[in-house]
């Protein structure tokens, strides 16, 4: 479980996060949604420690994260896997080496055969066992995201973050990535946090949804309750999507 309270973050004069609090539960796909520029990615980067929040607290299963020493932060970070928007694969390494990279650096005592088995398993899990010798420049955007997921789970992380996993993907690949994230979350009982503005993802995998508006957490709940919201910015966000408009008309 990831808990965070009263997070504030400014860049220069611009307040990007204002008193953001919330809880992301274990074994669920937790979604952060909102329009572009509303602070979703900044919140995610504060939670993983890429940005240091100006104030507030982040706890990983009760373990304090922000403001702690490098040693303590690194200990928690080793339980975190993250899928970046562009995949963030290492260009000079093959698909297999990318997935093996965390094991090589963080688990040097593990034998080579164990590492290879673990990598093979993760690549099979994301359906890329035949592409392991390819370089990142030789694979598609959707494949890069799946390699990113394999790399994020290879250390058997307890927390999985995904920053806009569907951006730039066609609907079919997008659906496949969503299914993969949902399955992995339930299979490994991990805490998954997905930043997205894709309404299909919200309706398919959103078990705990947090809606952000102008740097604030203005609504949090289950996808089944989202359509009954009375929060005006969330209503606007939802009804900007044709799928939701059609569903609403139909109901």
């Amino acid at each position, binding site marked *: 479980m990831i808990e965070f309270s009263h997070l504030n973050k400014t860049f220069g004069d611009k307040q990007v996060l204002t008193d953001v609090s919330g809880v992301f539960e274990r074994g669920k796909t937790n979604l952060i949604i909102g329009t572009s520029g509303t602070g979703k990615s900044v919140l995610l980067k504060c939670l993983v420690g*890429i940005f240091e929040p100006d104030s507030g607290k982040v706890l990983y299963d009760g373990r304090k994260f922000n403001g702690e020493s490098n040693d303590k932060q690194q200990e928690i970070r080793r339980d*975190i896997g993250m899928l970046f928007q562009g995949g963030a694969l*290492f260009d000079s390494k093959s698909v297999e080496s990318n997935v093996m990279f965390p094991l090589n650096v*963080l688990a*040097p005592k593990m034998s080579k055969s164990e590492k290879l088995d673990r990598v093979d398993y993760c690549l099979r899990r994301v359906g890329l066992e035949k592409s392991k010798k390819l370089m990142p420049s030789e694979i598609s955007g959707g494949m890069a995201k799946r390699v990113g997921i394999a790399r994020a789970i290879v250390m058997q992380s307890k927390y999985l973050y995904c920053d806009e996993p569907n951006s730039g993907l066609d609907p079919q690949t997008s659906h496949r990535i969503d299914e993969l994230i949902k399955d992995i979350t339930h299979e490994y009982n991990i805490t998954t946090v997905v930043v997205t503005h894709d309404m299909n993802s919200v309706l398919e995998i959103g078990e705990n949804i947090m809606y952000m508006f102008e740097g604030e957490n203005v609504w949090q709940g289950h996808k089944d309750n989202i359509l009954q919201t009375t929060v005006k910015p969330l209503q606007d966000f939802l009804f900007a999507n044709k799928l939701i408009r059609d569903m609403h008309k139909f109901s």
Partner: protein
Amino acid sequence: MKELGKYLLLMGKLFVNREKFSIYAKLIIDEAIVIGTDSLLIVAIVSSFIGAVTAVQTAHNLYSPIIPLETIGSIVRDMTLLELAPTFTGVVLAGKIGSNIAGHLGSMRITEQIDALEVMGINSASYLILPKIVASLIVFPMLVTLSAFLGIFGGYVAGVLTHALTPEQYIAGIRDNFHGFDIFFALIKAFVFAFLISSISAFQGYYTRGGALEIGKASTVAVTHSCIAVLIADYLLAQLILAS
């Protein structure tokens, strides 16, 4: 001053929360091979020609019959060891290696590869920059040694081919009044330049923000700042070590 502080903090960050030595050993060897092999040809060409030019120009300026022709060899040797080999190699490598380091780290930054390392719990500064600096510290003195050898050899070839002096005179000149400390001084310069070029370029690349345009800017700034730092350090070392 703010940039200097940020640079010093980055240097400090290289030595905390490092990974195991065995991980760095492989990275250092890989970086050393890249820096060495990539720079070998350009260093060889530049060094041979500066040695040759020094010999020809010295011969051209020696018109007093009381100055022996062996002096050409001595001047080429001293110029090459004290100044030309370390400084020219430094400036050439600032352009070649500096831009490469800044471009590589800059592109890793904007494609979130550095963030990916941080999220994995790896000290990205230490993992990416320390091997480059250590590899430079190993390879630069080798390149400067090669440069000095080829510079003196280039002077020999040019001096003999233009009939400015005989091979025996040139050899006698480079052996005359030789100070072993000059080699040591050239190697000190090589170490200092290696650190400055690799660390300044890494600093520029590591903190790149934006897109492709900013990577280009970071590379340019890395080369400019490295060259200036090399020239300032060159003067300071000469003043501190030779003038004392």
